[in-house]
């Protein structure tokens, strides 16, 4: 019931006390974490030793709690971002985009990535249609793939970009089967990077909601 002692990861460790029949329920700050401590001692295990005696958890504690939460979120964010780079979903170009973001364009990266999503989905649809024709127009297919390559490389979606290269070769060979396989692969990679980026953005939003600043990942 009680969280691990000395654990400051209040954001993650939500302890909810199922038994609420106790009248004297110490209700710690609701804030973002909800937990009911049945006994005062529960609090001790949840929070840093409060400067003031419980149950009066002052703003300071709450602030700290928030900070911990923000910190936790930020760490998660940084870690997640690093993993995306490590696993090749993103490359240096994405970092460039992040560096371009500034106060005058605080949502630059999100904006660009959204454009990328829109454009890519349109292109993937066009590709599906084009390869579905009885007489495949490989020039057209190649043009689409080329554009996808351009936009994915511009946002730093490395895996998607890398899929475009063999795709173009298949187009040159006029190999419909191979093209379909490439298309399939590209779609997978695209969906993968899309979900990853969306997770990243959500983390960002949480940090901002928690009052924190989005850490710059180099």
């Amino acid at each position, binding site marked *: 019931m009680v969280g691990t002692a000395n654990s400051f990861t209040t954001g993650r460790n939500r302890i909810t006390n199922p038994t609420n029949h106790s009248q004297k329920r110490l209700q710690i700050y609701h804030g973002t974490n909800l937990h009911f401590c049945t006994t005062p001692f529960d609090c001790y295990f949840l929070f840093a030793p409060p400067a003031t005696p419980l149950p009066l958890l002052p703003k300071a504690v709450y602030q700290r709690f928030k900070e911990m939460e923000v910190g936790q979120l930020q760490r998660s964010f940084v870690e997640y971002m690093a993993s995306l780079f490590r696993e090749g979903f993103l490359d240096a*170009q994405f970092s*460039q*985009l992040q560096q*371009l973001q*500034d106060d005058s*364009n605080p949502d*630059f990266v999100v*904006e*660009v990535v959204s*454009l*990328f999503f*829109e*454009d890519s989905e349109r292109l993937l649809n066009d590709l599906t249609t084009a390869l579905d024709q009885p007489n495949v127009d490989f020039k057209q297919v190649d*043009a689409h793939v*080329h*554009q996808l*390559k*351009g*936009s994915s*490389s*511009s*946002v*730093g979606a490395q895996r998607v970009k890398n899929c475009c290269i063999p795709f173009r070769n298949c187009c040159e060979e006029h190999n419909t089967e191979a093209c379909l396989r490439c298309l399939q692969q590209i779609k997978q990679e695209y969906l993968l990077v899309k979900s990853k980026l969306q997770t990243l953005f959500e983390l960002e939003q949480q940090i901002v909601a928690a009052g924190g600043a989005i850490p710059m990942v180099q």
Partner: protein
Amino acid sequence: MNIGSGSLVTVPSSAASWKSSDVVSDQFPVGLRVLVVDDDPTCLRILEKMLRNCHYEVTKCNRAEVALSLLRENKNGFDIVISDVHMPDMDGFKLLEHIGLEMDLPVIMMSADDSKDVVMKGVTHGAYDYLIKPVRIEALKNIWQHVVRKKKHEWKDNNFDQSGSVEEGDRQQKPSEDVDYSSSANEGNWKNSKKRKEEEEEAEERDDTSTLKKPRVVWSVELHQQFVQAVHQLGIDKAVPKKILELMNVPGLTRENVASHLQKYRLYLRRLSGVSQHQNGLNSSFIGRPDATFGTISPLNGLDIQAIAAAGQIPAQSLATLQAAALGRSATKSAISVPLVDQRNLFSFENSKLRFPEGQQQLNNSNKQIDLLHGIPTTMEPKQLANLHHPSQSFVGMNMQVNSTSQHNNSVLMRMSQSQPRAQMLNGANNGSQVSRLPLSMQQSLSSEGIPGGVLAQSGIVDNARGSVYNPVSQASSMVDFSVKSKELQSYNFSLGSNSSGISTLTNRGMLQEAMNSDIKGSRGFPSNYDIFNELHQPKSQNWGLQNIGSIFDASHHPSIQGTQGVSSQLLLQQGISSTHNNGQNRNAPIGKPMYSNGEESGHASPMGGPQLNSVGGNMLAVKAERFPEADYRSIIFPEQFGQDDLMSAFLKQQGSVGPVETEFGFDGYTLDNLPV
């Protein structure tokens, strides 16, 4: 950009203050007005943000048509254009041509496609740079250099009288900027070395380039003639302002006047050879080495220039004089470059008129110019000769370099798509021999007994300040190829066509290509019947300026000239197919075929024995059988031949794309090596 008359002291083309003086303000390049065209919204947005971060003023549009209308509405509203290559509504290169033609703005191409042939296409079409996506902000930070460079060259052109300090500064800028600018094609290094060498040259001549305003000296025809005579007397290499001044003996003329005039003159010549810059460079280097072999070329070069000039603006008479002068000459170096340069001018009449009013006069007036012309390429480009031996890449570089030196000719349409293929060839797709093949055949076909002038068809690579090495190489290879291939003829026709297209309308590109394609096809089957050219050119429906040239060549086709073996007429035709606009760089017609007939007296061991092209109907340039030391080229010929076939077929395959053909005409790096020096 401002193609003003000679009376302009400054270039007040736009509001930005830095443009109107040779002093770059501290604020620059803040506020540079950039137009970005890309159908990819993601890239567009990113570029916009990047450019904003560079403190540029950005306008973005996702359609080429929209971009063009924007540009047309605000003629001076933009300083530079960045365009994607692959766009659904219009090809990026077409847009490039339009902009060059109509607005004469520097255009930077970009694409995710980094294959060399596409990059080469950009170069030959006259793009100021080519960026590979994903574009980094560092690459965009330096785009202002292109604007400055262009402005300065234009300004210099327009101000014959001005001292060359601007140029020097500009030139010094260039190498460093080129080095920094890593995203451009790898000609950057060539450019750097070329530019540095040019700098040294210029620095020598320009003793104290001051920016003080002096009473403006009007370089009248007579004065200029005197000047040219003096330079000729001294030899272009040794023409120092002081000595020129002494020789001229004109009261009231200062050394500074002479110095700046000399600089302009050199640039002019360089520009002339810029179209076939590589050729010039090649020629000069070539000539430099196998002097006996190519010596005769130089007189012809001069003649060629004349021919070109005549075609454009100079009456045949001057051509005749020039020819005579050229004939008299022997074993001068780098003659080829001269004709090339002129040819460019010819092909872009309006531009050349604007740009080289003096030049034309010069051509008309002074036979000695030929010497100068000859001389100039040598001086300018001997250093690049070192590059000759490098494979195609070097050619590209050389061409580039030459081109940059002769950046004056903005509107040279010469640069046609042919240059692209040539460039492509140079870029490693083809043997160097292939590259040179075209120019060679061009030369030969063009230089019918003395077609004066040096119609220098510059194989397409001609790009800014490049290809100084290229010229000689092309010469060499062209010589080799000439005797061998009919296909070359075809390509020659092609280049001729392109030349004319270059001459007439840059916008006829599409037509041109078609015509050229048909021409080439038509000429297939005539192995050594250079009359093909006649036939090929006859159906030319497009009003390619070649007709003009052809007539001029005919006119200048003097028996006396023909008789002289020594006349090496190097005709470098540049096809200005690809890009009609001058990015301030000499975009010379892509197809530059150095044509020169090496007479016996030039020391050629054996005549080329190539078929003779008889100029027909004014469109054909008669090709005189050129004599070449065949033995020397034999070994080269076959490999080249082989390549050429491929090229031809490739070319024919590509409808409407001059590219492959041009590769044929690219200069052969290794051909040069094989050539005896």
